[in-house]
């Protein structure tokens, strides 16, 4: 009986939320992306990205993302995104767990983020926090010398779109310290340009480019890396 009540208490809010339609019309989709990337540490390298979007209902969507890099770095991320429609735009909560297996350096970088966002046709803003654990593969369970915890980091993302969200094409500009496969420290911004074009009802063409400087905010700023990304999304 107690378990039934608990189950009902857990499921009831989901059912209530599912009763209302959400912002936008996102469908189950799979995205394949190829990337060329350069940074001063890893040099020139290529990445292959695989992403799956699962809109569970109008108020919950889930995303899984994987990246395989020729720099011998492998990243997986899962996002659960509750969202609530407002008279204008949509409020969403961003929960994100990301693990980056930096095999080349024999360490793992795990981050967990919680943020609140607001999305309208032409702008999307997210603000939140995240924590990081860097963990050496040569782990000794009797020592705390093989991992480093960075407990508090600010997460921010401001994205401006040229067209409404449901337009068949769009162009966006983003200022953020996080993207699909990295969560940088708060003083390490990323500058991105994104674009998409809907070829037909099912296929979408995606483009993105990103510039990563280093030393901004109280060091001497300079160019550090850049990424170009192109790929397709199939919407079911």
């Amino acid at each position, binding site marked *: 009986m107690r378990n039934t009540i608990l189950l009902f208490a857990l499921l009831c809010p989901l059912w209530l939320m599912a009763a209302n339609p959400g912002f936008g019309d996102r469908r189950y989709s799979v995205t394949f992306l190829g990337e060329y990337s350069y940074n001063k540490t890893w040099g020139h390298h290529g990445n292959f990205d695989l992403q799956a979007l699962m809109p569970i209902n109008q108020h919950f969507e889930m995303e899984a993302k994987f990246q395989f890099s020729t720099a011998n770095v492998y990243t997986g991320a899962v996002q659960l995104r509750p969202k609530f429609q407002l008279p204008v735009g949509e409020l969403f909560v961003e929960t994100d767990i990301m693990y980056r297996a930096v095999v080349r350096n*024999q360490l793992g970088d795990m981050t967990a983020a919680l943020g609140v966002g607001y999305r309208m046709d032409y702008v999307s803003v997210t603000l939140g926090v995240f924590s990081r654990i860097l963990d050496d593969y040569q782990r000794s369970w009797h020592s705390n*010398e093989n991992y480093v915890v960075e407990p508090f980091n600010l997460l921010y993302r401001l994205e401006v779109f040229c067209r409404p969200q449901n337009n068949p094409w769009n162009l966006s500009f983003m200022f953020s310290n996080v993207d699909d496969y990295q969560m940088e420290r708060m003083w*390490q911004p990323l500058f991105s340009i994104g674009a998409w074009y809907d070829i037909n009802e099912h296929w979408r063409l995606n483009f993105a480019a990103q510039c990563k400087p280093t030393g*901004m*905010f109280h*060091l*001497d*700023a300079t160019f*550090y890396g850049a990424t170009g990304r192109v790929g397709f999304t199939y919407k079911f």
Partner: protein
Amino acid sequence: MTKKILYIALSALVFMACANEDSTLDMKGMFSPNGETVQVRFAQSMAYNDTVGEIHLDMHADDYVIYVCTDSHITRKSHKLLDYFIDQYNAASTPKLALHLGDHIDGQKNYPCVDSILNLANDHLFNALGNHDIYFKQWPIYRSYFHTSAYWFDTNNGNKKLDLFICLDSAEGSLGVDQTNWLKKLLEAKSQEGYRRIIVFTHTHLWKLDGSQGHTSNMALEETYELTSLLAQYNVEFVWCGHQHARQSVIFKGVNYLVLDSSKDSEEGQAYITVEMGENCFYHYHNYPKL
């Protein structure tokens, strides 16, 4: 009218921040490349290093003491803590050397002042380059006084090798391609030479452990991964840094990362450290008195 006043006030603030020689921040340098990049500085440093040759310090003992301070941010009017540090260093009777981990000055036109203070050190003193040291395009001036931003030296007792010290230029939050390759080759070669310990000192810290970091940025994540693994691979024992003006200690992969307090006059509760180098290694914080 209100908009115009606001615009003028804002412009004046930005102009003051950029142009006033006593201002501490180079707003332009914080947001875009300002003067020589680390690639250029590193090339110039290597050229200088080649002209002077290798530096081997004979300490005439196995045990000696290192005095380390950072972030003195001196101006012509404000340099009491750095004076005190040099006095303490000069007063020590043991074999010794000193390190300054960067951000020697604030603003502009303060190099003659810091040089006159550091020249009072009556023994070996080595410097790392900080971001404030090159704000307002001051790398050529830093270079004219301190010559190099990336170098190594070692300590000996007669023919007996003791410790290896490597200074890195991290003022941009990146070592750059050439300096990283140089560091790899240097560690690979020197780790075979039987040094007692290897110590790296630089300005920028690698971790963001708590709020004490304030608004000071680190290196990019990729560089953090690579550098920490490289230092661990070659058994570097200590990395000494400054930049965040608050002490911090963390051990990762067997490397002890130590961030020092500042030596800036206007800040309270600041400290320098002394490190007893011997068979074992101990470091001690020394709070500056109120001066």
